[in-house]
């Protein structure tokens, strides 16, 4: 690996660690989708801090559609590192009367669509991609959704449309964590083989380790090199990946409300990780 590449990976790993810390900080107030937010940290770091091009207003030129609602916690964690939300306001997540929705409505800073009714993000992202291409814009459109979500038929209508229209400006990011609302996706209604299914719908697709910065960067690069097809990066992840004490305590927790000691143990672990990565970056 070149020095530049190594530095870039180290930088994004540090960002991912900070995102994890923010996710815990936010969710330890009143519970939340901490496991998903933690597990998606590398994807969020690579997306927000490497892949999405900035515009002239310190915002993002490319467009990101978060589909399933609860992954908003990932965006909050990342946008706090970005500086567009303060951690103080994000700590009102899940409080009565807060503007920090667990599942945001279209127009909230950082959220292109009203998320949370599963299966509707991929279509809307495809519509945005179609419209941007019609305008001859070079914007790229990214849409995050989950493996449980792809049990929804609307996802496959969207995939058929995106493949038919050859929307090469569209990248689907599938959080393939083998977890639905009540248990294992594979046990409830199997979705595998996910990459092959998207390939059959006209996508270029690749399965990656969603917690490897290097693999996420490589997939984003491959997506940009792909012409005449949309791209699906199928990211295998595990809940709470990156914070081992919470992962062993809560391996299948779709929604998390735990006691203070567990949160503190998780925070201690991630703070140590941030210290280690910061020291590594300084050496």
């Amino acid at each position, binding site marked *: 690996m070149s020095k530049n590449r190594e530095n870039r990976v180290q930088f994004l790993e540090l960002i991912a660690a900070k995102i994890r810390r923010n996710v815990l900080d936010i969710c330890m107030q009143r519970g939340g989708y901490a496991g998903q937010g933690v597990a998606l940290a590398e994807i969020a770091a690579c997306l927000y801090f490497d892949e999405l091009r900035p515009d002239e207003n310190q915002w993002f030129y490319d467009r990101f559609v978060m589909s399933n609602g609860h992954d908003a916690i990932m965006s909050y964690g990342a946008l706090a590192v970005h500086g567009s939300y303060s951690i103080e306001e994000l700590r009102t997540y899940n409080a009565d009367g807060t503007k920090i929705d667990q599942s945001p409505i*279209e127009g909230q800073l950082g959220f292109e669509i009203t998320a949370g009714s599963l299966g*509707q993000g991929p279509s809307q992202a495809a519509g945005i991609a179609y419209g941007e291409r019609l305008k001859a814009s070079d914007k790229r459109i990214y849409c995050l959704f989950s493996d449980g979500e792809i049990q929804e038929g609307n996802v496959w209508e969207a995939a058929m449309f995106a493949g038919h229209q050859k929307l090469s400006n569209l990248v689907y990011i599938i959080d393939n964590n083998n977890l639905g609302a009540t248990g294992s996706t594979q046990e409830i209604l199997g979705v595998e083989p996910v990459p092959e299914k998207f390939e059959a719908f006209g996508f270029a697709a690749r399965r990656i380790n969603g917690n490897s910065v290097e693999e996420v960067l490589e997939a984003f690069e491959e997506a940009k090199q792909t012409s005449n097809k949309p791209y699906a990066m199928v990211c295998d992840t595990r809940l709470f990946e990156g914070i081992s004490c919470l992962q062993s305590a809560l391996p299948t927790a779709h929604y998390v409300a735990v006691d203070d000691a567990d949160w503190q143990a998780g925070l201690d672990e991630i703070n140590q990780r941030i210290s280690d990565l910061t020291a590594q970056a300084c050496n």
Partner: protein
Amino acid sequence: MLLTGERSLDSAPFDEISFDLCSHRRDVIIMSADLSKYTQIVRVKEELPDQHLDVGMAEQNLISVAAGISKAGFVPVATTFACYATRRAYDQMIICMGTSPRTNIVIGFMPGIANPARIHHQAAEDLGMVRAIPNATVIDPMDVTDFKQALDAAVDIPGLTYIRGHRGATPRILDPDRFHFELGKTYQLRQGSGVGIITTGLASQWGLESSDLLEQRGTSHSLLHVPTIKPVNEDEIAEFCFAHEQIVTIENHQIVTGLGSLVSEIVSSIGGGPRITRLGLPNSWAPGGTLGYIRGQLGLDADSLAKTIEGVLQ
């Protein structure tokens, strides 16, 4: 006088309406779910292909892709049959369009008993469904004139607008030189006393037919056409209702949740007022077949309507 002197028939109203709109609004995209031919979208598809998009037989995708297209700065007009637009894709209509400030238009063709295929194609609850969405706009035009004018207005209305569409031989009843569609406005087509008839959409045609019979028989009445179901000018409806002894509403829709319910809600919120008789589809499935047959079976043919209206005055 808002009515034309001589009624003409337009055999393919939406072809011309959509082409005219797209010719002067290049940001409009006419979308279909493999029904362009059956909703009579021809010229846009052939002559303005960049403004036509077919997503195939996938109505949930039609609505959600349309919402995405609006987020890229275009004005989507998603067209399909009313049954698919509302029943099949209601969640998408609410979430993708209903919560968005961007202009999103859905046209549901052949609503209610305008469709011959019983039950599965006869969306007789669509007005009520969309009316229940906060901030949505709902329009049920009666002929070619207000269909065109309503769509021309809708492209500048923020949020979700649902319009019931006409296809096939459609009369021009309203004089385009004198009728000017305004969102929420009601239009008095006949003025009299005694019974006040309130109608919307295709049923405004039925209302006029029965009005002609009532005039011949010397039964005084008024007729109010209400193209906008939401947001409606409630004062105009209240004023009309309280000026009559009896009110009869007629709609190509279930008698719950649509026009009759709207009028009842307005009058009951004031208190007192006339008795309201709601005519339309009752709490049972309508038969299939030709429109004339179905109307006859449901007591919605001109003669039956006139008799019912005369009956309420007894």
